[in-house]
C-alpha cells in the first residue's frame, strides 16, 4: 500500500468508528455538541500520532509477550503529558477539552492501531496511519454530534438554527447517542453494499 492509501483508508474504508466500530464509548459520551466532538477528535489524533511514532520506533526491541503492557504504559504517559502541558500552556483550550483527555487512555483505537499497525510498520506509514485514523475518527464524531446537537438542542456549534420549541431533548441524552450511531451505521452498511467498497 502507498503512503497515501495508508492515510485515506482510515477516513472511509476502515473508519475506526463506522467501519471497525471501535471507540464507541467516547463517541457516545462526548458527542452531545459539535464543539465537544471535534475537540475530542483533535486531542485523540495528537495522542495517537505520538504513540504510533514511538511504538513504531520501538517495534524491534519490544518483546512480543509483554507488548500490551508496554503499549499501555507508553499511551498512558503520553496522555498524562498532554493533559499537563495543555493545562499549563493553553488554559483556554484545556477548559474546553480538559474532561476528554483522561478518557483517551481507555480509547481502544489507540491500542488497536499500536497492535495492528505501528508494531508491524516503519515510522512513515505509521504516521500516515495515525493521521488518517485520527481524521476518520474526528469526522465520525463530528457527524454524530452534528445530528445530536441540531436535533437535540437546536444549535450548531452553539449557534441557534432551529426555533426553541423544535429540539427533542432525547437526542442529547444517552439514548439519542445510541439511536444516532445505530442509524448512521445502518446507513453506511447500506451504502457499502451498494458501492462495494
Amino acid at each position, binding site marked *: 500500500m502507498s503512503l497515501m492509501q495508508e492515510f485515506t483508508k482510515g477516513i472511509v474504508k476502515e473508519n475506526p468508528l463506522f467501519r471497525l466500530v471501535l471507540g464507541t464509548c467516547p463517541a457516545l459520551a462526548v458527542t452531545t455538541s459539535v464543539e465537544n466532538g471535534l475537540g475530542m477528535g483533535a486531542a485523540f489524533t495528537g495522542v495517537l500520532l505520538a504513540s504510533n511514532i514511538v511504538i513504531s520506533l520501538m517495534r524491534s526491541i519490544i518483546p512480543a509477550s509483554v507488548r500490551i503492557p508496554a503499549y499501555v504504559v*507508553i499511551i498512558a504517559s503520553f496522555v498524562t*503529558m498532554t493533559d499537563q502541558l495543555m493545562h499549563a500552556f493553553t488554559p483556554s483550550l484545556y477548559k474546553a477539552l480538559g474532561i476528554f483527555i483522561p478518557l483517551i487512555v481507555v480509547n481502544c483505537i489507540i491500542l488497536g492501531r499500536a497492535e495492528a499497525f505501528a508494531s508491524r510498520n516503519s515510522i512513515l506509514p505509521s504516521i500516515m496511519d495515525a493521521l488518517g485514523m485520527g481524521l476518520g475518527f474526528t469526522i465520525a464524531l463530528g457527524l454524530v454530534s452534528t445530528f445530536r446537537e441540531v436535533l437535540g438542542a437546536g444549535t450548531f456549534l452553539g449557534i441557534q438554527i432551529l426555533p426553541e420549541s423544535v429540539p427533542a431533548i432525547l437526542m442529547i441524552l444517552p439514548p439519542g447517542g445510541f439511536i444516532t450511531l445505530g442509524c448512521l451505521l445502518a446507513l453506511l452498511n447500506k451504502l457499502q453494499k451498494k458501492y462495494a467498497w
Partner: protein
Amino acid sequence: MGDIIKLGLFLMLVAAVAGLGVGYVNIMAAPLIEKQILEEKIRSFKEVYPEGDNVKNETAKYLGVPDPILKEVNISYRSGIPVGVIYLAQTKGYSGAITILAGFDLVSGKIIAVKVLIQTETPGLGAKAKEPAFQNRYKEKDSVTELEVSKTPPTRENQIQAITASTITSKAVTKGVNAAREHFVATFGAAKQK
C-alpha cells in the same frame, strides 16, 4: 525463569523511562498549572464581587464546624475595610456535585452575583446553569428572605425561575445560595444595621 526476569526488567525499564518523562513534564508544568487555578479563582471572585481590591480566605474564623454545603468564606476588602463576603458552596445536582460562588454586599445586604464554578450536569439541559442567562437571575436578590425555585416566570421577588427541564439543577444551585444567604444573615446581619 530467565525469561521472566528479562521481561520484567524490560517492562521496568519502559516504566522508568515513561515515569521520568512524566515527572519532567510535571516539574515544568505544575507551577504554571497552580498559577492558572489561582488566577481563575481570583477572576471568579471579581465576577461575583467586583468592588473589593483584596480577598482573604477567612473560612476558619467564620465557619467553626465543617458545614455540609458551605466550604469557604472569603472576605472582600476595599482599602482594608471589609465590604463583601464571597461564599464557596457545594451541593448535589442531577449528575454530581455543583460548586458555586455567591457574593454578598455587607452594606446593602444584597446578593451581588452567583457563579457556577464546577458542574457535570447534562449538556444542553442542566449545564445551562453556568450561562449568564441563569446566573443573572440571582443578581440583586435580598439576603433576608429564602429564595424559591419556580417553574413559571417569577411573580414574587424571592423567586428564581428554573432552567427548562432542569429543576433539580436549579434547585441545587438555589440550595447552595440559600445556605450562603442564611450564614450571611446570621453572621453579618448585625453589621448591616450600623
